[in-house]
């Protein structure tokens, strides 16, 4: 089955070339069928790949350049169940977004489709690649496609500004990453991840490796919008069309985390795996991200900005899961990735529907306008409950596994902070839903700052398609926590992903990794603590949402910190660059102290 991995890249890329190249030739329906068909076929193949990857790591050496005597010359895709699962959910989200865009974005549709397919191929390649430089290639391809997709509505100034902020910040991340590659290559003379790990096994790591790790991981964290590198996300999401947001927020931003996990467990676990220094920094970055972005979400009134911070908040939780450096944490991150991608996509789809229906995207302006739209309302509330992680809904199972990992390591305070983050973001979404779909609360709120200028969206859409796509996404996302056997499979997949020496032996010497025993097909039970935390987070979110709707005046003590938070998220790209520089320097400095 080693022929499947290259197809997950080749099919979307070939279809991208075909759809733009045949723009003037083939009729619209044929084009639509080609685009949706290519994306659906990629998703289906990813499912087949997942099936096979559970038994053994599926490895494909491009050009047939297999390693000789343990030296890898070629480029490989190495796919375990974790990477294959990512490809499946990437395929689902992109396919749903393309269906949504069928009537949502008619102008320049061919160019849009070509870029979406290029991004799909790039994301799959990124999830599967086992080569450092190859990772960079896919990272850049998805970034270039995403910049253009973000600025799609060129006739307005806002989108161009948002896309420029996105492009400058992420290009800077690309520079850091490529300098990191150069440093690592100068030291090890290798680009294959397993080979680099092997080369770093001997002797002390030293400053070069610490700095290279800082640059490489910070490159991914910028892509992943982790605090303090997160500032571009809200600007970009606010202006991108809804189906683009669904892909950006659902999978493309979060995928940076997979890069972090991949690099850590193939390369940097070799020199630094004895201690917890690398993981602790990631854990703390994740905790700060979860709480800060959750708070920021609560302070937004623009729905897409609110969702952007909700995405960043959950990325923080997932990064904390990786930072625990154990199997439970990584498995939890994987399950959260799956549920979060689908739920976030569905919420962006609903935001797009509201934008089309009313020409508005502002919570306060939309107050009461969604009354009677029961299908979007159901999708919104179900998606929100799923994102909070109410027991046995949505991200709950993944979050519970991260909790388990934290308490096994004796860090029982970690889950409390993480649940606080998702409750804050969830409260914002609940408040917005109640205001829009139920007409509750006031139509003024000084906490939320000024309205951002809105562009009415005049489109002749087929509403049933939009609503249907949103409902499909939300149902899939909500169900993730109760799929029998999924928890055990995720733990097995995470265990395989963490097996640094087994991976290297499989890649460089073609030795088989141990196959799983029979995995039980039951719904995984989480600990009592998680159940309590999840219930508490739900109640807290409900209470906070009510407070947001009905309190008369903002408590005076809150005013200064809120002002500081708003002013830090200035929208000025120079500030963003400053934070990238400072964030990278501080992260590297801490690692230098911890790892020397």
């Amino acid at each position, binding site marked *: 089955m080693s*022929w499947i991995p*290259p197809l997950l890249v*080749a099919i979307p*890329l*070939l279809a*991208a*070339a*075909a759809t*733009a*190249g*045949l*723009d*003037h030739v083939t009729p619209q329906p044929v084009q639509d069928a080609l685009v949706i068909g290519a994306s659906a076929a990629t998703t289906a193949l990813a499912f087949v790949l997942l099936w096979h990857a559970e038994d053994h790591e599926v490895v494909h*050496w*491009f*050009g*047939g*350049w297999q390693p000789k005597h343990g*030296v890898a*010359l*070629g*480029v490989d895709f190495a796919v375990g169940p974790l990477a294959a699962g990512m490809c499946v959910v990437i395929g689902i989200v992109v396919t749903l977004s393309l269906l949504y865009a069928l009537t949502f974005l008619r102008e*320049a549709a061919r*160019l849009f489709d070509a*870029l979406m397919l*290029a991004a799909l*191929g*790039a994301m799959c*390649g990124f999830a599967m690649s086992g080569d450092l430089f190859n990772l960079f*290639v*896919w990272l*850049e*391809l998805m970034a*270039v*496609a995403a*910049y*253009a997709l973000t600025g799609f509505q*060129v*006739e307005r100034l806002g989108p161009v500004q948002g896309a420029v902020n996105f492009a400058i910040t992420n290009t800077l991340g690309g520079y850091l990453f490529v*300098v990191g590659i150069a*440093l690592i*290559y*100068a*030291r090890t*003379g*290798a680009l294959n991840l397993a080979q680099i790990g092997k*080369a770093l096994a001997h002797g002390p790591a030293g*400053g*070069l490796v*610490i*700095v*290279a790790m*800082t640059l490489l991981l910070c490159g991914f964290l910028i892509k992943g919008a982790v605090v303090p590198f997160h500032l571009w996300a809200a600007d970009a999401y606010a202006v991108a069309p809804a189906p683009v947001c669904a892909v950006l927020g659902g999978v493309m931003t979060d995928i940076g985390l997979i890069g972090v996990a991949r690099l850590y467990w193939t390369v940097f676990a070799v020199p630094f795996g004895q201690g917890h220094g690398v993981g602790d920094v990631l854990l703390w970055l994740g905790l700060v991200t979860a709480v800060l972005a959750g708070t920021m979400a609560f302070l937004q009134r623009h729905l897409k900005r609110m969702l952007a911070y909700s995405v960043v908040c959950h990325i923080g939780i997932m990064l904390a899961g990786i930072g625990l450096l154990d199997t439970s944490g990584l498995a939890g991150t994987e399950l959260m990735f799956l549920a979060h991608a689908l739920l976030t996509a569905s919420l962006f789809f609903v935001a797009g529907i509201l934008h089309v229906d009313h020409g508005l995207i502002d919570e306060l302006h939309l107050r009461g306008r969604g009354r009677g739209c029961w299908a979007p309302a159901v999708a919104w509330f179900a998606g929100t409950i799923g994102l909070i992680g109410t027991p046995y809904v949505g991200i709950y199972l993944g979050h519970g596994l991260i909790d388990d990992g934290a308490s096994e390591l004796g860090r029982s305070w970690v889950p409390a902070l993480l649940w606080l983050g998702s409750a804050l973001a969830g409260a914002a979404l609940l408040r917005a839903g109640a205001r829009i779909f139920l007409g509750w609360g006031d139509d003024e709120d000084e906490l939320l700052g000024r309205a951002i200028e809105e562009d009415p969206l005049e489109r002749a859409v087929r509403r049933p398609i939009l609503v249907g796509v949103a409902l499909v996404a939300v149902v899939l996302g909500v169900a993730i926590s109760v799929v029998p056997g999924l928890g055990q499979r995720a733990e097995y997949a995470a265990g395989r992903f963490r097996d640094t020496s087994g991976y290297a032996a499989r890649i460089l010497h073609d030795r088989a990794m141990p196959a799983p025993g029979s995995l039980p097909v039951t719904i995984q039970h989480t600990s009592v603590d998680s159940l309590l935390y999840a219930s508490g987070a739900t109640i807290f979110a409900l209470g906070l949402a009510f407070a947001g709707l009905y309190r008369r005046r903002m408590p005076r003590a809150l005013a200064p910190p809120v002002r500081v938070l708003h002013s830090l998220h200035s929208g000025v790209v120079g500030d963003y660059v*400053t934070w990238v*520089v*400072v964030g990278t*320097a501080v992260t*590297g*400095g801490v690692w*230098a102290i911890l790892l020397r």
Partner: protein
Amino acid sequence: MMVLGPGLLGLGSLFAWAMAGLPAFGDYHGPYGFVLNRVVVPLRHTTNVVMGTTFDVRGVDTMGEEFILYAAVVGVTLLLRDETRSKQAERRTRRLPNDTARLVGIAMVGGGLLVGLWLMAFGYITPGGGFQGGVLAAGAILLLYVVGSHRDYRPFRDVHALDPLESLGSGGYVIVGLAALASGTAFLTNLFGLGTTGTLLSGGSIAILNWASAIAVTCAMVLLFAEFLETYVVPLEPEDSGS
């Protein structure tokens, strides 16, 4: 600024710390470069090891890079599209005042094209390749605009021809890879006869992939230039257009 200064200082010191750990100049230990230098010529019959690496050993990287260029061109077309822009508007004709300069310029168009084609064709034998040659050829076509006028350049930027050609170049790369996969070997395996080292008929797939990227890059660059020109060259006012 108050934050940026210390930040840059910190990043700079980290970088200096990393540089101190680099091996000395010329002291290369890695297996990668040595092995490639040793195996590419005998195994692939291309005397340009760089091309053997980029189009064969690491061919999939080049495929991704070609699509980065492709996505960039599609993105520029998307971002610079302007529904209000009149397709019929004649662009201002601006000729170089000096005939000698024009003659030299026109000669350089031919020369540039020739060098571009040479770089493409002999890329796997001597330094060069499809990417480099493509950029040069497209630059030569752009010279037409510099020495002549937009009108002279326009026949070369027919999107009905360029779009399919560019897609053929990029898609062709993928198709070569898929052909190898369909024949039961790995994606992008070198399927074709390797020929005699040092001749144009050597390298097998490398030659085909080289031409695919040459086509894709030439078209991409011409399209890019055309998009920028369309946007930034001031259209003539309707009343001037007859003169």
